[in-house]
């Protein structure tokens, strides 16, 4: 979506980008911002819908409580104010920021407006009907579009670059506040619209919140804050990790601290850990694996059979840590076996081999080949984990604070994800990780550098599969049932999508990708049959506008900023005439 070209100095916007919109930039932004503020105070619906009034008092309420706006109207107000601020304050990369905020405003307005229209049965619901007027969504949408145009008019420059150096205590404070904000945003994202289907408008409210959050994040990234923060957190890596872990452990104490969201968060965590393992194979070593969830299935089956469940087959009950290690090892061995064809096949062909392996796993588990899966009867009744008599699926209290049920699983899984992250990060920045990336970039050159590519590729499969096996072991106990149904091709594809969506080779990316892919369907439940369609559309939109993933790896991020290097593009140098040399 960036229109900037190679080798333009970052400071001055290139002339050709200043289109006919240029003189209208600031006025448009001003009008857009004002319209946003006005829209927030206008009514949005002309009558009470049949599922109840549109939330946040936006039915037929007009300027009645300008200081008490809530929900999406508060988001719209905030976006309007931010657009005005961005238009007139000295903000780096002004055009980019205004455009991002404009998109946020337009999306929030559009989603609410479209949803009201559909639910209310016609445009009357968002315009004028029976003498009542409610132009909120239209005004907001116009404001948003104006701000987007204003962004192009002002000129889309490279994201701002901050050179601010902070003393350590201040840096710690900034990181602390930022991560607390992240925690707040995560809790808000989980809880907006309520739990499950308790609120008839939960899906729309959630999408609207995503629009707002996306707009603000894009604006922050445009200002250069996000990159600055990530550099800062890399400088204070240990502190950042501790704070992040603390934030994750604090989630049960926020609004999201109930059984429902603990369960969802724990599920996300299991898939996030698996996605990080897949990220080693796909993101680092560049080996496309379409049957990866099978390793998680193998881990889950092994753990289930050692768990002492009534239908387990091994006849011995092992303590969870031992069973988990065995699950990891067995999955790892299968990983190495599946990886061995990589010595001979590359690219697309490898993808087919892994696809076939995934299918073999599902079918043999379904038909109980080997007699350890119980086929379609699954292995039910796996006992929950317990530690010092505290069962992991029961609620739990520390002193006077009563924590929701499932919180112990949540904590276990946070630790699992943290351990997986550590494995990934340490491997990535090591001799082995460099070898993997070299193989991904150019296999022949990697071999010419003394890398035994076959061994390294099998190692990637082995480690990735081991991590998946561990996650599978936790999965078995947490869900209580292991069935082949949980490890089908669709799950492999979703995991792969999580990795690509989040950003290949990036750790926070894999977590965010897994979170989105497993929260979105949950949140979109009320759209029923349209759920997966909306989900698919969202994926297409994200990949169209952010092909490098939501939180790209440092290298891929740098790829987008290669304009500021000032080097001559390689392609031009190739054209040196032959006579010049002789």
């Amino acid at each position, binding site marked *: 979506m960036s229109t900037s070209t190679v080798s333009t100095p970052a400071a001055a916007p290139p002339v050709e980008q200043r289109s006919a919109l240029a003189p209208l930039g600031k006025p448009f932004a001003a009008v857009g911002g004002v319209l946003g503020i006005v829209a927030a105070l206008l009514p949005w619906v002309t009558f009470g819908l049949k599922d109840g009034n549109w939330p946040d008092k936006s039915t037929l309420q007009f300027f009645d409580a300008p200081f008490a706006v809530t929900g999406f109207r508060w988001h719209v107000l905030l976006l309007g104010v931010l657009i005005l601020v961005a238009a007139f304050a000295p903000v780096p990369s002004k055009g980019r920021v205004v455009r991002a905020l404009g998109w946020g405003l337009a999306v929030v307005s559009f989603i609410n407006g479209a949803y009201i229209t559909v639910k209310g049965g016609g445009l009357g619901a968002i315009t004028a009907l029976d003498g009542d007027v409610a132009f909120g969504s239209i005004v907001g949408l116009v404001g948003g579009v104006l701000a987007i145009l204003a962004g192009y008019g002002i000129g889309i420059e490279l994201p701002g670059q901050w050179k601010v150096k902070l003393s350590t205590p201040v840096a710690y404070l900034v990181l602390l506040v930022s991560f607390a904000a992240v925690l707040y945003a995560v809790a808000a994202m989980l809880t907006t619209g309520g739990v499950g289907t308790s609120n008839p408008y939960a899906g729309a409210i959630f999408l609207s919140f995503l629009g707002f959050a996306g707009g603000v994040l894009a604006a922050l990234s445009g200002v250069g804050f996000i990159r600055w923060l990530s550099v800062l957190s890399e400088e204070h890596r240990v502190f950042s990790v501790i704070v992040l872990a603390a934030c994750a452990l604090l989630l049960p104490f926020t609004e999201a601290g109930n059984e429902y969201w603990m369960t969802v968060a724990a599920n996300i965590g299991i898939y996030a850990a698996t996605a990080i393992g897949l990220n080693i194979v796909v993101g680092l070593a560049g080996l496309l694996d379409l049957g990866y969830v099978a390793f998680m299935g193998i881990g889950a089956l092994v753990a289930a059979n050692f768990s002492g469940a009534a239908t387990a087959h091994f006849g011995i009950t092992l303590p969870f840590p031992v069973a988990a290690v065995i699950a990891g090892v067995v999955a790892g061995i299968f990983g190495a076996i599946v990886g061995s064809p990589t010595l001979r096949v590359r690219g697309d062909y490898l993808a087919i081999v892994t696809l076939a392996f995934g299918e073999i796993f599902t079918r043999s588990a379904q038909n109980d080949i080997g007699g350890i899966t119980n086929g379609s009867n699954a292995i039910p009744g796996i006992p929950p984990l317990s530690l010092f008599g505290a069962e992991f699926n029961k609620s739990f209290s520390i002193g006077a604070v009563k924590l929701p049920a499932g919180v112990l699983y949540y904590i276990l899984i946070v630790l699992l994800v943290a351990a997986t992250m550590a494995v990934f990060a*340490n491997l990535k920045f*090591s001799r082995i990780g*460099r070898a993997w990336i070299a193989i991904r970039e150019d296999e022949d*050159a990697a*071999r*010419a550098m*003394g*890398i035994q590519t076959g061994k390294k590729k099998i190692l990637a499969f082995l480690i990735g599969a081991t991590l998946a096996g561990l996650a599978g072991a936790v999965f078995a106990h947490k869900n209580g049932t292991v069935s082949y149904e949980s490890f089908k091709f669709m799950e492999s594809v979703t995991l792969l999508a999580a990795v690509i969506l989040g950003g290949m080779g990036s750790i926070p990316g894999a977590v965010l990708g897994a979170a989105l892919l497993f929260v979105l369907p949950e949140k979109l439940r009320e759209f029923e049959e349209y759920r997966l369609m909306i989900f698919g559309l969202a994926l297409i939109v994200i990949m169209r506008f952010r092909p490098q993933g939501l939180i790209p790896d440092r290298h891929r991020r740098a790829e987008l900023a290669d304009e500021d*290097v000032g080097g001559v593009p*390689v392609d031009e140098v190739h054209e040196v005439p032959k006579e010049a040399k002789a």
Partner: protein
Amino acid sequence: MSTPVLEARDVSMVFGGLKALKGVTLTLDEGKIVGLIGPNGAGKTTFFNCLTGLYQPTTGQVLLKGKELPGDPAHVTKAGVARTFQNIRLFPSMTVLENVLVGRHSRMKQGPLASLFHGPAYQRGERAARERSRELLAFVGLNNLDDELSRNLPYGDQRRLEIARALATDPAVLLLDEPTAGMNPQETEATQQLIFRIRETGVSVVVIEHDIKFIFGLCDSVSVLVQGELLVEGSPETVRADPRVVEAYLGKPPEEVQHDVEAAAASAEEEQA
């Protein structure tokens, strides 16, 4: 006479019905620079691929210090033969320093467990590798570019980075495939000086190049490869004087060529006017 550092004996390479190399023999003595020239399609790069184990020669042997080289590029590199590629093959999304560190791969010991836990021994090895890599980057003249992505380097710097990466494998023999392709005269001159300095560090060099002037100014001996066969071998003076070389390159007697060149120059002038 001491054993040559690199020796190719009677190397042939057949692809299906195509004989790309027909019994090529080449000897590289320690501390020497040997040039390999020949028209396009003569089999120079195929020969390099045979030397580095990327291809298995159909017949013939390649010996490093009298010992036969293993038939796998990774092991060949470990044994002490490093190479660069005709069309630069860096790892584009890795930084400059990381590219050189990949070159250190075969000289580092850390296995998967050490890489997982980053213990003290790991840290020492990693530091040493970084230090050595920075030295090599300084040696080829790429200072203060450590964290730049290699894809962003200008063309000449990419060539030099590829040489630094090859040197990071601590080779006894360095094979350079057209190191000055696409360079201007100043860069070519700098590359020549760089190759001399590499030789001073005790590395023997084989260079493929189209630029005859560059080869004759650089090499201790030159081999001419034509249609997979070794045509002439000898000192630059001998090779330069050999009429077969000129013929092989240009395919016409020298007078006609002279005529053609003049005609081309004349037409170029016309265009300018």
